[in-house]
């Protein structure tokens, strides 16, 4: 019988910390962060990363807002007013959330334009484009659902119009609009389901899309600039 192959354990280097000795995080960090990029990469290649940055800001500020916001018609406006006026740093957090949302929409389009102009969507990166477009739709849906949450006149009527646009879809439009509204009239259930979509469903979808998006960049590298 052949002898069992010798185990290839890496001997712990001198000076390694307790955690490093057990998990080898430095090697992981090197593999994740130190990646070669093609020559000629410009600042225009930053739009995707900046979009991701705004997403992180939105998640963090959104979690803070969720500590105070009440998604109910009789308390939504009051709780938003409380965040704005009484909560220390509340208006800062809420405005960060609002402006990051605006910035994300702008940056995600700039990112898409950059990828389009550079032709970076071509083989083998078609799936990155497809996942990106799906995330774009989810981001627009996040903007649409978030607009209603302050439960003010602007948000109420914008949602009214937006749902009526969905209702103009042939054949299934009426059901689509009722599904979005949670009934025949815009009301408590609409606010609640927009809230659920805004804080649970859509961010989860974007998160899953981001993991796929980044995994594909890892696998394929970023495309050479034209």
């Amino acid at each position, binding site marked *: 019988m052949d002898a069992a192959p010798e185990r290839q354990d890496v001997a712990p280097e001198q000076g390694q910390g307790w955690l490093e000795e057990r998990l080898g995080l430095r090697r992981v960090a090197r593999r994740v962060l130190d990646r070669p990029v093609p020559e000629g990469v410009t600042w225009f290649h930053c739009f995707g990363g900046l979009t991701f940055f705004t997403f992180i800001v939105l998640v963090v500020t959104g979690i803070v807002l969720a500590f105070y916001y009440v998604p*109910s018609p009789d308390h939504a406006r009051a709780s938003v007013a409380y965040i704005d006026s009484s909560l220390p740093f509340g208006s800062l957090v809420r405005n960060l959330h609002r402006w990051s949302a605006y910035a994300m929409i702008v940056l995600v389009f700039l990112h898409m334009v950059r990828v389009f102009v550079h032709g970076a969507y071509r083989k083998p990166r078609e799936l990155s484009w497809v996942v990106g477009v799906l995330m774009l739709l989810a981001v627009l849906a996040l903007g649409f659902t978030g607009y209603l949450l302050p439960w003010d006149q602007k948000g109420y009527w914008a949602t009214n119009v937006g749902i009526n646009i969905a209702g103009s879809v042939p054949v299934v439009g009426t059901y689509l609009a009722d599904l979005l509204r949670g*009934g025949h009239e815009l009301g408590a259930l609409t606010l609640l389901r927009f809230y659920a979509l805004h804080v649970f469903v859509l961010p989860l979808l974007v998160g899953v899309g981001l993991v796929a998006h980044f995994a594909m960049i890892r696998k394929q590298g970023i495309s050479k600039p034209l």
Partner: protein
Amino acid sequence: MRWGLGSVTAAIAAVLGAFGLPPIIAPAFRHTKSPWSPIGKIGAPEAGQADLALQGQVVATTFTRTLTDAFMPPQAQQTAVFVVNLGNGQFDVFDARCTHLGCPVSWNQSTNEFYCPCHGGVFNMQGNVVAGPPPRPLDRYEWKVQDGVLYAGGLYRVKGES
């Protein structure tokens, strides 16, 4: 083992979907009955109230309905309508929202037309589309007259010319 794990995962997803989806889509298929609500007495209007006895004229008014919105306590809600007394005890009660995207329409006395400010939808006194993007005539409320009082019931749609 490979198949086993896949099947178990699929089964869990199917069960979660079967119990998770119905509550989410159910409210879209539930119909609530609209109660009959008084719009106003026909003739002899009190001060500040619309005169529903005037025939062949569009009267802009509101009526109050007590509606229950899901888990919220029942609440009185003002609804804007246009009432036309057609004579012979016949009425048209138009919903004030444009059938295009739901903006409120206003009655233009000089042109005898309803006009929507959002995208220029125009309706005539019968509620039919004269111009602009609205896909159907103005929606209407069921109505009835009881003891000289005009009541509004459920909202309904009219397809095409009416």
